[in-house]
């Protein structure tokens, strides 16, 4: 069912959407697994929770619940950027979508984010199913070609890829009958600077506040890990190329072309204007650091002079009080 999409749209997904969906899912899941005794301490509650899970009488605990919601964002030309999402009320047994709720929520979000509109819907699960098509069709009267964002909430520590897939719907002719089926599309993660910092902050749970030294250390660690990542990726490409040269790996010309185009881009920025701009920025930074150091020095000097005056001021010590200037 999931072949690759041919619509030519590029998708950009913001991390906020992913955290939103995950939060929605966690909330619904924890409301269903009620910790029985609530007056006990947290450790007792978690052990009770574990007991509940192992007894596992209800269906809800064995099969994780599916949550549904709407994704909103902007579409500019061929680029679709998904910024935010909110929950929807949908009953899978009767297949009814609560329309008034959807409209109400849309209105509320329009007031705060006037540029965003409904781009599609999301759900959790491991794979796109046939029944999802009903929801998809229901949304088609708001947006002619909605997106379906699927998040797989199963935590698999061996997984290296984000368990999020974006599906589009396309009209294909199967056995002579034109049907809508889901086709997978690729997407990239797009962040605003502020988003990146807060995601980074929460991802690594850095100590908040603290002295300037710890903050500097934290930021440098971030950059260091990014550089390490770049280094490891380059190494992988290098190993691959060496393997191809030796003949261990079959030559793949499309990949070779990509690598050569990347390499050709490298010494691109050698022009004089770039050097001038770079040096100007460099000088600005150095100047500011110099100024900060200067201010520090002058304040220390000031303090020293004050202390000197207080300690060695012989003339006024006998008189009693002096006027402090």
């Amino acid at each position, binding site marked *: 069912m999931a072949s690759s999409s041919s619509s030519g749209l590029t998708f950009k997904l913001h*991390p906020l959407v992913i*955290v*939103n969906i*995950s*939060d*929605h*899912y*966690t*909330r619904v899941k*924890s*409301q269903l*697994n009620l*910790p029985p005794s*609530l007056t006990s301490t*947290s450790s007792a509650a*978690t052990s009770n*929770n*574990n007991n509940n899970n192992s007894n596992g009488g209800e269906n809800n605990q064995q099969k994780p619940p599916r949550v549904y919601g709407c994704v909103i964002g902007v579409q500019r030309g061929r680029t679709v950027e998904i910024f935010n999402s909110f*929950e*929807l009320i949908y009953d899978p047994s009767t297949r009814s979508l609560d329309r008034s*709720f959807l409209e*109400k929520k849309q209105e*509320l979000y329009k007031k*705060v984010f006037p540029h965003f509109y409904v781009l599609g819907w999301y759900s959790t699960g491991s794979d796109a199913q046939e029944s999802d098509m009903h929801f998809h069709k229901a949304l088609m009267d708001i947006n002619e070609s909605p997106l379906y964002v699927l998040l797989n909430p199963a*935590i698999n*520590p061996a997984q290296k*890829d*984000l*368990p999020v897939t974006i599906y589009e719907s396309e009209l294909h002719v199967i056995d002579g009958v034109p049907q809508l089926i889901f086709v997978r599309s690729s997407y990239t*993660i797009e962040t*605003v*600077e*502020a*988003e*990146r*910092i*807060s*995601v980074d*902050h*929460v*991802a690594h*749970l*850095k100590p*908040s506040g*603290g002295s300037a030294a*710890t*903050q500097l*250390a*934290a*930021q440098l660690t*971030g*950059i260091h890990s*990014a*550089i390490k*990542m*770049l280094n490891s990726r380059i190494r992988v490409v290098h190993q691959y190329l060496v393997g191809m040269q030796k003949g261990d790996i079959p030559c793949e010309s499309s990949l070779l072309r990509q690598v050569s185009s990347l390499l050709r881009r490298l010494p691109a920025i050698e022009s004089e204007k770039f050097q001038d701009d770079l040096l100007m*920025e460099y000088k*600005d930074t150095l100047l*500011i650091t110099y*100024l900060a150091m200067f201010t520090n020095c002058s304040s220390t000097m000031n303090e020293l002079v004050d202390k000197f005056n207080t300690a060695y001021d012989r003339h006024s010590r006998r008189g009693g009080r002096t006027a402090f200037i």
Partner: protein
Amino acid sequence: MDSAIAQKTWELENNILAVEAPNPSSDFIFYYDEVAQAMSLKAKPWGNDPHFFKRVKISALALLKMVIHARSGGTIEVMGLMQGKTGGDAIIVMDAFALPVEGTETRVNAQADAYEYMVDYSQTNKQAGRLENVVGWYHSHPGYGCWLSGIDVSTQMLNQQFQEPFLAVVIDPTRTVSAGKVDIGAFRTYPEGYKPTDDPISEYQTIPLNKIEDFGVHCKQYYALNITYFKSSLDCHLLDLLWNKYWVNTLSSSPLLGNGDYVAGQLSDLGISFLCT
């Protein structure tokens, strides 16, 4: 394993408290216990002690939403509300949402405009399965630090009289982006006439000259709470995987270019304060 030893030394020197990795059983913080919350609302243990709440726990989602909203306002102050619950001496913030009002520095009761929006939003949320109540408000101070201005203090005092438990959070999106770490502060005001018994030393922050008066007059009327963050096990897993994608953005970010105005403003401020002394 030198790196392991180095890490342990660093952790020891910086008093890093090991946060236990969230596992599915610790996600119970996400469970909203209506009965217990109603009981604690009736008991009101914060009524007698103005310094009752000492900590704030903010969820990853709430932090993300607040910072993005604050940054999207640019140089205009924006505000919103936070939803959550109380847990002992901590206020737990689970979610946040933006309010369609702008500019709180000149109007004391900007929240009155947003009441209808707030009621609608809370109702729809309860239907969709978010059962928490509004537990505070947040707003941004773009470029001038995290503290409560005179108007903020009077708004918060009013809130704490009628909408307890309530929390005030301030975010500075400009400093966040230029420093590379989230600049956030959580505050609660003391009631009128209350003198705090111990004077906690607050962290020094540079405040622009045109705001320093406002800061100084009111800085003793409120106290800051300790902020910690939490995330669910699924969040943890997803965020780790996300890192594989956005390390490129980390390298390609350039805080100098993005914050040219802010840096220039700070420098001119510095110049003026040099002239004054």
